[in-house]
């Protein structure tokens, strides 16, 4: 395996009773890479992501995340990754500054570090006048940008983003990707799921999961060539249409 890989997944499987949610998947992700994790609803993306972030134990197989074993070192994994999803990101009834301090503490930063870095982050996000406002009163686009910044506040090796741009306006969606590029340039590996097919093109490499299996894994350009498709959209339709397992049945 490649020494630069921060995610090394080998023959990972998760079964729930007789149902195999994730079926023997293997892949590596390099440091600083933007890795798109695509698939239809019910394909097994969330189950795979929960295993990689140390929240769920695999039935078979193994993965090394930021140097730690997902069977033994789940607590260490949690300290070395960031996580953000559209559904849960910030506490609405805490202020902007309190959210940053709270998550900084959760991710194990020292009090001193938090004291110094909090105003810097607030300033960088242009939220100086909003620092003491409740997060619940901010527009969604601001919340999402803040949530992402909080998830990488402790400079993790990897950040997992589960549909981070769902429902945000088209300009904010693009600004959000500017932040992702910036994080990737600073060496943070970005592992991201999305339902926007145009966003798949921003990734260095993408996987397409179908029925718990990885059906394709390559750069967007190579995938288009491989499937003789004009767009990633077409590649997705080609692969996902063949899915036997509908989200409905899971």
């Amino acid at each position: 395996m490649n020494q630069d890989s921060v995610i090394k997944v080998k023959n990972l499987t998760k079964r729930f009773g007789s149902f195999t949610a994730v079926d023997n998947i293997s892949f590596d992700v390099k440091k600083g890479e933007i890795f798109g994790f695509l698939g239809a609803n019910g394909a097994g993306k969330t189950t795979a992501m929960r295993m990689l972030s140390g929240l769920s134990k695999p039935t078979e197989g193994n993965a090394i995340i930021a140097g730690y074993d997902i069977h033994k070192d789940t607590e260490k994994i949690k300290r070395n990754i960031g996580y953000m999803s559209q559904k849960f990101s910030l506490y609405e009834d805490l202020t902007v500054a309190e959210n940053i301090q709270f998550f900084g503490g959760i991710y194990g930063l020292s009090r001193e570090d938090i004291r110094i870095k909090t105003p810097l982050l607030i300033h960088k996000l242009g939220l100086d006048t909003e620092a003491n406002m409740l997060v619940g009163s901010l527009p969604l686009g601001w919340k999402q940008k803040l949530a992402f910044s909080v998830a990488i506040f402790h400079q993790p090796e990897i950040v997992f983003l589960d549909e981070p741009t769902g429902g945000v306006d088209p300009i904010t969606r693009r600004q959000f990707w500017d932040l992702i590029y910036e994080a990737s340039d600073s060496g943070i590996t970005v592992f991201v799921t999305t339902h926007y097919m145009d966003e798949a093109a921003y990734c260095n490499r993408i996987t397409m999961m179908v029925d718990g299996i990885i059906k394709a894994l390559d750069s967007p350009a190579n995938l288009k060539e491989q499937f003789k498709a004009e767009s990633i959209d077409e590649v997705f339709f080609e692969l996902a249409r063949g899915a036997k397992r509908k989200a409905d049945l899971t």
Partner: protein
Amino acid sequence: MEIILKVENISKSYADGKILALQSISFQVKRGDIFGIIGPDGAGKTTLFRILTTLMLPDNGNATLNGQNLLTDFKKIRNQIGYMPGKFSNYQDLTVEENLQFFANVFNTSVVENYHLIAEIYDQLSPFKHRRAGQLSGGMKQKLALCCALIHKPAILFLDEPTTGVDAVSRKEFWEMLERLKHQGITIIVSTPYMDEALHCDDIALIQNGKIMSIHTPAGIISQFGEDLFAVKATNMSQLLKLLRNETWVKSCFSFGEAHHVTINSSQAAEELFSQFALQKSILDWKIEKIEPTIEDCFIKLMEK
């Protein structure tokens, strides 16, 4: 064509007027059309749906639904509309079959009477008819909610973000289903944050911060873009974006995944300007072509105004 829904100057604010959720919203929908309300989260879509389905009163304005007055005939309106909220609204501890039965009873009808409307959708649900609704997958819950919203044969069906968080293939199937309901004569008002879905609608309203920015057919919105749009590509796309944004002849430049979409403010040909620029900045493997704007291009342009 007959107008089945006429909305006039509806406004709504929250938090003692501090949050203007809707500002003087007006539009009309023709009987048998699919009308799309397209905008991001927080634009006011759900507030508008709650008002039009008689669950909330507007601060100002009124509407006529299927000949009934929104403010005075709300009880009659409730029998003539179907509503599928964004959040799952069926009874989690009733089975699939019991939920459907319950909604039919509430509307003084039977499942048999209008079964033809839901037959195709219910077909996929029937293997699970004895399962409690709370135990269904997301896709199945959505189908059940749609069946329950249709069982009393409403004249107007309101669907609040039915495809949010749904993958691209399932979204396409859902829109095909709506197309077939339209052919059964049901008028559909549907909201979505996905701009590409606009093309399935007869008319669309683009909504942002509680205001409608434009109403037209999808083709009409696109024709209102009013200037040439170019797709540009190069090997290093993030570098290209930064460099283009610094050029004075570039009016707007947004990333659209595989290409950047660019408008220019110069009388010179875009191809010439771009090739000079590419030469100057040593940009490799570049390509420029004139393209038709998408609804998302139009939305961004309207937002910037």
